[in-house]
């Protein structure tokens, strides 16, 4: 038995140390929320007439779009003329702008030609005109796409039924796509998610059913697969390409590698970085805003909570922690030290996770999050208290301390699991069903609860059981905050409870 406990103990300690070291080495730091450190504020003005309802809907879509990035806890509000979005700690103002986006509509257009690409793919092949507008119309000069300054079709000429020349949303600035008329709109897309498959980042698409969804898409796919003139093969390629265009920019233009797709198993791959896959999925998922927005300005804003408040909060947290430590050790003596170490372990792991998510996924740590963690301290301590009180109870009932240690842990742990499961259910549901700050709270609650279970099972339980095998424990129960013996005066042997 002690060996097993030892393994668990060493495992959790090693894990904690490793997590802490990695956090330092990777320079992971929690991303502080808008209220704590400020960020970037983007002011968008609506083009054309709007009303409050439309702006509210816009706010909602932008919130979804940013929530899709993680739990950045943006501040989004309607203004008299548009929308104001503030994001915590975004250093790169350009990125803030693209995140917030200024979306018109998402369209699927076949690629007729690609110009100025590093590889130099230009010419299209295939001649026989049939079906939808053929790219051959371009070759014969019957149709000339309108091209404005910068070599692309200006937004006012970007009609769904016309041939257009558009640039890519990201990537080489000179590259141009010559695109056919729109065949499908963003309505077709039900869901889009970044996926890590076959060691590379891809974007998984779910389409809706019916003509505006998968059926329409398959019709196009069949043409592009064989390279019909409406969706021709480009030079050196075996299939045609279908561009997905957002707000006059090509998000991605994948080659169609199959004649038919199932609605929920379409994958776009293309050597994406994780961030690209994220951005592409977001753009696909949240297509159109009800109003067209134009960025007016992007500015750096300071924290909403004064530095004095912040300092007060930190001081309060430290003082509180010290007092808790004093109380626990004063009350439970050596068991109290075990409880504190257990707390330190779950705290270190929580910090590592929060710092990692903050750096990688834009999880923001707001005042609410900090306070949630302070309260989580109380709940984590409770797991220890439940066990220790059970232990004392058993000892008073006449058991030896040593046998109580083994007997009480499973019972106490079962209680803790029951209570924590309720918290986890709450955290999971709130995470799945809500938006904004509530979602951030749910994440912290869930993490803290899980880590509480981990620290209790892997550290606190084994540690107490290991201590219980020492002579010291048997001889000085008071040093462990346990009563010296049971209140029952009948002699008690460790093996059988005797009633005489």
């Amino acid at each position, binding site marked *: 038995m002690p060996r097993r406990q030892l393994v668990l103990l060493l495992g959790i300690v090693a894990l904690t140390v490793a997590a802490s070291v990695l956090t330092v080495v990777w320079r992971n730091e929690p991303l502080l929320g808008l209220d704590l450190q400020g960020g970037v504020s983007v002011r968008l003005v609506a083009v054309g007439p709007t009303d409050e309802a439309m702006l*509210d809907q816009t*706010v*909602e879509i932008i*919130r979804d779009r940013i929530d899709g990035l993680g739990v950045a806890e943006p501040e989004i509000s*309607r203004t*008299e003329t548009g929308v*104001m979005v503030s994001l915590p700690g975004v250093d790169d103002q350009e990125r803030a702008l693209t995140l917030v986006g200024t979306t018109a509509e998402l369209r699927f257009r076949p690629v007729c030609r690609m110009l100025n690409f590093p590889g130099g793919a230009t010419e299209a092949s295939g001649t026989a005109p049939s079906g939808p507008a053929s790219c051959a119309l371009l070759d014969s000069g019957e149709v000339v796409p309108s091209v404005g300054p910068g070599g692309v079709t200006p937004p006012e000429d970007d009609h769904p039924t016309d041939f257009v020349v558009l640039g890519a949303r990201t990537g080489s600035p000179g590259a141009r796509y010559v695109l056919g008329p729109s065949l499908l709109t963003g309505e077709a897309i039900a869901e889009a998610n970044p996926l890590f498959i076959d060691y590379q980042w891809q974007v998984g698409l779910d389409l809706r059913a019916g003509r505006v969804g998968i059926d329409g898409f398959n019709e196009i796919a069949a043409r592009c697969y064989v390279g019909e003139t409406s969706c021709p093969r480009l030079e050196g390629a075996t299939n045609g390409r279908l561009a997905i265009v957002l707000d006059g920019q090509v998000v991605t233009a994948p080659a169609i590698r199959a004649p038919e797709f199932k609605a929920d198993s379409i994958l776009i791959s293309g050597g994406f970085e994780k961030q690209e896959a994220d951005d592409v999925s977001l753009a696909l998922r949240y297509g159109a805003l009800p109003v067209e927005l134009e960025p007016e300005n992007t*500015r*750096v*804003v300071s924290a909403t909570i*004064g530095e*004095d*408040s912040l300092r*007060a*909060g930190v*001081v*309060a*947290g430290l*003082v*509180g*922690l010290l007092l*808790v430590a004093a109380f626990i050790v004063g009350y439970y003596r050596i068991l109290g030290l075990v409880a504190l170490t257990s707390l330190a372990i779950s705290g270190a792991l929580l910090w590592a996770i929060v710092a990692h998510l903050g750096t990688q996924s834009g999880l923001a740590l707001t*005042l*609410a999050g900090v*306070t*949630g963690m*302070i*309260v989580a301290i*109380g*709940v984590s301590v*409770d797991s220890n208290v439940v066990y220790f*009180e059970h232990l004392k*109870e058993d000892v*008073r009932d*006449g058991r030896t301390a040593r046998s109580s240690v083994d007997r009480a842990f499973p019972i106490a742990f*079962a*209680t*803790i699991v*029951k*209570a924590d*499961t*309720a*918290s986890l*259910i*709450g955290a999971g549901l*709130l995470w799945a*069903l*809500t938006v*904004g*700050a*509530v979602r951030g709270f749910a994440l912290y*609650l869930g993490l803290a609860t899980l880590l509480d279970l981990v620290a209790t099972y892997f550290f606190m339980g084994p540690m107490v059981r290991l201590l219980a095998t020492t002579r010291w424990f*048997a*001889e000085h129960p008071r040093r462990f905050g346990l009563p*010296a013996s049971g*209140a*029952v*005066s009948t002699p008690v042997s460790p093996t059988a*409870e005797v*009633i005489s």
Partner: protein
Amino acid sequence: MSRLTGLYRGESSVDFPGLWRRAVMASTVAVLIGLASFGIRGLNLGLDFEGGTSYEVRAPGAEVADARAVMDDLGAGDARVQVVDDEVLLIRSDIEDPARAAEIRDALTTRLGPVEAFEQVGPTWGDEVTDKALRALVVFFVVVALYITVRLEWKMAVGALVAVAHDIVLSVGVYSVFQFEITPATVIAFLTIMGYSLYDTIVVYDKVREIVARLGATERYTYPELMNLALNRVTMRSINTSVTSAIPVVSLLVVGSLAMGAAALQEFAVALLVGIVVGSYSSLFLASSLVSRLKEGEERWQAVASKVRGRIGEEGPTRVIGRQEAVLSDTRAAPRRSPSGGPAKKRPPVVRPATGGAPPRPRKKKKR
């Protein structure tokens, strides 16, 4: 004092069932006050929920504290102040009345600098966020009720939900009565309270379930008596947990009151403190009394109750189950000894160790 030391030694003998009636009455009054205040005064919703006015003041070099001082003088101390690009102060306040807003604009112009932009802003915490959160809460209550029903029993699910609702009404009531401003952080505090209260109630219920499973089969104690024993045994845990949870919050309250401009922290701490105290109280007094009331009506427990009454005469105050009785009656502790199937044995003479008296001397060495 002797009661305290008794509590520490686990000899506490609080007559919980005797206190239930008073607790239920006190809670009912508190809940009614909370609801009445909510109905009449409503809540003081902040900028994030209602929107307000935003001012941009060009004041290079000005500090947040300067702007806050000015706004304080104008009676809008809860304004949110940010520095934009180091030279503009962005001030947002929840004042919606255009005349008042214009007054403030003029005052800002004279005292800080030219107001460059001045407009109404919408809420950042829109109705949509609230709607989704409320829907999620309803789902959450249903799922948790099912969960408690499966793991414990449905009567406990009812008790737990009533206790949680009580805690939320009281916490929100405090905000309504004192008209503290509700911010997103406050809402998070309410959610935290909810989670804490539920957690606490389940811990208490699990103890009750454990005690009933151990001593229930003896048919010697009525349900409230068993409940009383369980509550007494879990009291120390509840107190310790509340204390450790409350210490950081109290510290936030004290330090917050010493520091300037930390009013937000203070109100937040008040909500949490009320929630923690009320959460522990409702688990011990409300959730348990409700379950006890529901269980008493069950046939099994009515039979036990009438049997017990027949044996010891009329109902007095709840008999307190002493430690020795509890251990002796522990059906698990002496499985081989318990008479199989026979009628309940005569009650053993009650040898209750005197509370606060000298406990038996510890044996110096255990022979192994």
